[in-house]
């Protein structure tokens, strides 16, 4: 047993010396390879964590939302629709929601304004998300100016700041009273933004949704399942940045594989020839190349994974944040819960380490099976 271990360690020593002889080239190779693994692992960690958190958190979203559509666009829904929906068998309750967007020209940011029916706020007061508090330097008691639909100023006092822990949901949120909301946007009393419907039997949600669309053809029911599915697919591999990163990584990897599989350099072939001439067997040469490939790919894999974890979960994904932020001024400072599984690492290992190691061995096997004299002469 110790003989086998010693032999393998000797081959590994030789493989490392061989790699160090071409220090510059191999260092560049490990760096690019690490970056490829880093990019792939970052995308995988980010999307998985986001999907898991969305699935967990959005499970509490309303089971059915009904919007009114006019000319293909979301429009205000008349409250008279509530009675019609209530007539459908299986419907337990219908509640109107008032929400909308407000563009703040002062800091050029968009806010989401929402009326909370469960804990209604007194008139002339608001509760703001942590992101808004940050960009507007707002605190409890400070006043924020708004301009109503008719251009008249509306001054609202900050009654509270929403928790920083829920910034992934409420960073840009302003909770406001129904009266202030209607005054700000000029929404008449008989209308709401949309309706939430509670269904007695969960199995009947799809049937109730179909009936709503049948009785009120100008509406669009949105099921909780559909909202959840939205976030399952929101960062799908087809989505822009993901495919760009994956394609970039794939192309870089193809270049590596091509470089290796297309054949060895004359120097490497001569090295194999000399090794065979001094008594190395084909199996030894293959083991040498296996250790060379594994040293490079394992180093890149481990470093890439560790860096990706630091990037996504400890440094709050600064590279992705720049892309997601886009033109928005108000950006949530959220920290994702690290839902990391062993299977994710295994998949990455299989797609990065295995192909590279195999690609290193094949051309070496070809060179190692030729006569040493012929190899050294070419």
């Amino acid at each position, binding site marked *: 047993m110790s003989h086998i271990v010693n032999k393998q360690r000797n081959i590994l020593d030789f493989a490392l010396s061989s790699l160090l002889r071409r220090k510059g080239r191999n260092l560049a190779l490990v760096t690019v390879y690490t970056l490829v693994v880093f990019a792939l692992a970052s995308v995988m960690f980010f999307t998985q964590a*986001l999907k898991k958190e969305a699935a967990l958190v959005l499970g509490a979203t309303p089971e059915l939302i009904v919007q009114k559509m006019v000319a293909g666009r979301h429009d205000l829904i008349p409250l008279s629709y509530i009675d019609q929906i209530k007539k459908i068998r299986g419907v337990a309750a219908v509640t109107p929601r008032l929400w909308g967007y407000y563009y703040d020209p002062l800091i050029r940011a968009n806010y989401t304004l929402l009326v909370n029916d469960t804990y209604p706020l007194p008139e002339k007061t608001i509760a703001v998300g942590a992101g808004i508090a940050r960009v507007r330097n707002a605190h409890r008691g400070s006043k924020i100016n708004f301009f109503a639909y008719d251009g008249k100023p509306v001054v609202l006092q900050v009654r509270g700041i929403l928790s920083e822990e*829920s910034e992934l949901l409420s960073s840009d949120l302003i909770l406001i009273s129904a009266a202030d909301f209607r005054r700000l946007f000029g929404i008449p009393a008989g209308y709401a933004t949309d309706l*939430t419907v509670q269904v007695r039997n969960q199995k009947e949600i799809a049937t109730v949704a179909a009936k709503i669309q049948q009785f009120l053809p100008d509406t669009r029911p949105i099921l909780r399942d559909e909202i959840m599915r939205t976030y399952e697919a929101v*960062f799908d591999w087809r989505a822009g940045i993901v495919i760009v990163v994956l394609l970039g990584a794939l192309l870089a990897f193809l270049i590596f594989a091509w470089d290796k599989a297309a054949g060895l350099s004359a120097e490497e072939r001569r090295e194999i020839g000399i090794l065979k001439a001094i008594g190395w067997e084909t199996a030894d040469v293959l083991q040498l190349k296996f250790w060379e490939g594994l040293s490079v790919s394992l180093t890149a894999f481990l470093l890439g994974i560790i860096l990706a974890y630091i990037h996504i*979960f400890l440094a709050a994904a600064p590279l992705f944040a720049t892309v997601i932020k886009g033109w928005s001024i108000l950006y949530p400072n959220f920290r994702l819960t*690290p839902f990391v599984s062993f299977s994710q*690492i295994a998949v990455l290992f299989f797609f990065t380490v295995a192909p590279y190691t195999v690609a290193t061995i094949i051309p070496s096997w070809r060179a190692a099976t030729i006569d040493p004299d012929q190899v050294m002469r070419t």
Partner: protein
Amino acid sequence: MRKSSIFLIFILGCTLVLSLVFLDAHFQTAGDLPFLRQEIKVVETLKLTDLCLTTEARHTRHPSQADWHSPFQSHPGALDHFPSGAIIQPPETIIKGYEPHRQ
């Protein structure tokens, strides 16, 4: 020291760090549970439907609520000009309200 020893120590060190990463992920997830419960409560109380990933456009702020035309709202034939629109894809179910089901 032999080169193989240095390399093996390096790989073992990296594997140890990777194990610490798993450990950190496990403890952070467990530690985040109260915050996640708080988030669930916020969603339930405020009847929220979407994550606040970006605030620049309504179809990326509330992808589950936006209509099919909101990315192209500027004028007929307009393209989506928000960078976040390139990374957050619309839900496939979004078209169901506009297109009658074809058998």
